[in-house]
């Protein structure tokens, strides 16, 4: 981001970077930087809060009035990442003949569809489409149970498969919860849901099976074990 600021400014464009890492900006001195200590992934601070987002932009554009560069200014509001899981009710068991994670993924489809209807688009689809998510979760169940990760027939690379499953759950969570604090959906997915716990279990199995490092590591947040 700071590199792009330098390159674009040198091309004659006035840049303002909404930097998420003050330490990096201090060392790379992009022309104009507004540091927002917000959850990573939310450079405008708060979703569905146009007033706050406008405040961020207003402070960013104000940096164009500075007589010289580099300039680095802090946004006065700090928004901490949430350590608690999103308050989000999970559907009850429906088909007891299925593994719990697969049953859960199927049952979340209605909530997922509500977000899809609202947004008109989904970020699920790198390895499989929404219809394929329960089957994909079923493959993760098998890996978690000890089957070889490269023999169960994953529909794509493990990172993309993990992306699709987490995204499916988080897009469903957006419809189920009133508001989604930064980081809370990831905690909900990884700590609370059968699907998330299964994914982490499969990831641990893949590490045991000596899958390539990137394949298992990037299936979940780096801190997850």
């Amino acid at each position, binding site marked *: 981001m*700071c*590199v*792009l600021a*330098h*390159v*674009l*400014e*040198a*091309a004659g*464009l*006035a*840049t303002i970077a909404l930097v*998420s*890492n003050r*330490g*990096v900006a201090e*060392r*790379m*001195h*992009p022309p104009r930087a507004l540091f927002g200590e917000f*959850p*990573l*992934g*939310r*450079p*405008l601070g708060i*979703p*569905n809060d*146009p007033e706050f*987002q*406008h405040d961020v*932009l207003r402070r960013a*554009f104000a940096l*164009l009035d500075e007589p*010289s*560069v*580099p300039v680095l200014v802090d946004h006065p509001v700090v928004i901490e*990442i949430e*350590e608690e899981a999103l308050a989000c009710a999970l559907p009850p068991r429906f088909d007891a003949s299925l593994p719990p994670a697969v049953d859960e993924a199927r049952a979340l489809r209605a909530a997922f569809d509500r977000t899809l209807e609202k*947004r008109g*688009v989904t*970020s699920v689809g*790198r390895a499989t489409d929404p219809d394929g998510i329960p089957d994909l979760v079923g493959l993760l169940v098998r890996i978690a149970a000890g089957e070889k990760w490269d023999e169960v027939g994953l529909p794509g690379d493990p990172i993309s498969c*993990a992306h699709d499953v987490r*995204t499916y759950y*988080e*897009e469903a*969570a*957006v419809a189920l919860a009133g508001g*989604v604090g*930064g*980081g*809370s*959906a990831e*905690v909900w997915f990884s700590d609370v849901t059968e699907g998330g716990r299964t994914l982490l279990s499969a990831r641990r199995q893949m590490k045991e099976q000596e899958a390539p490092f990137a394949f298992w590591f*990037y299936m*979940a*947040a*780096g*801190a997850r074990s």
Partner: protein
Amino acid sequence: MAVAAADACQDGRVSDESARAYAAALPVPEFETTAMATPPPLSQARVAIVTTAALHHVGDQDFTFDDTGFRVIEQGRTDLVLGHWSPNFDRAGFAADPNVVLPMHRLQELADAGTIGSVAPRHLSFAGNQEDTVTRIRLDSGPAAGELLKGDGVDVVVLTPV
């Protein structure tokens, strides 16, 4: 090739604190000087967004794991897919409201109010990847992005990382 710097968390969960500390301790490319462009007054300026959230439109090419290129985002077109490879940032905010990453509606409101001159017809999305020398960003995709934006009459760029 180093993927996005925020990709090594040592403790916690998504753990923004450790991700920030890790990224801040990495070697960074040196820029001996900082250029300064002088745009027209904001009320006359055309504004574009450049994000590193690996966004793309439905049907556009996915980002590869070490992609240093960019995709074009059309102003007002809301079929935005998040194609980032890093699991180390909050994605639910984007799922709830893409403006928290790519504030295209906020810019349109500012243009309608006369605060900014206009919104650029095209925004750009990179994926936050750079090799250690950042050569490709500096010499290839970065200048190409600048050329495209200049061609659209852009004066001011708001950069939004994830």
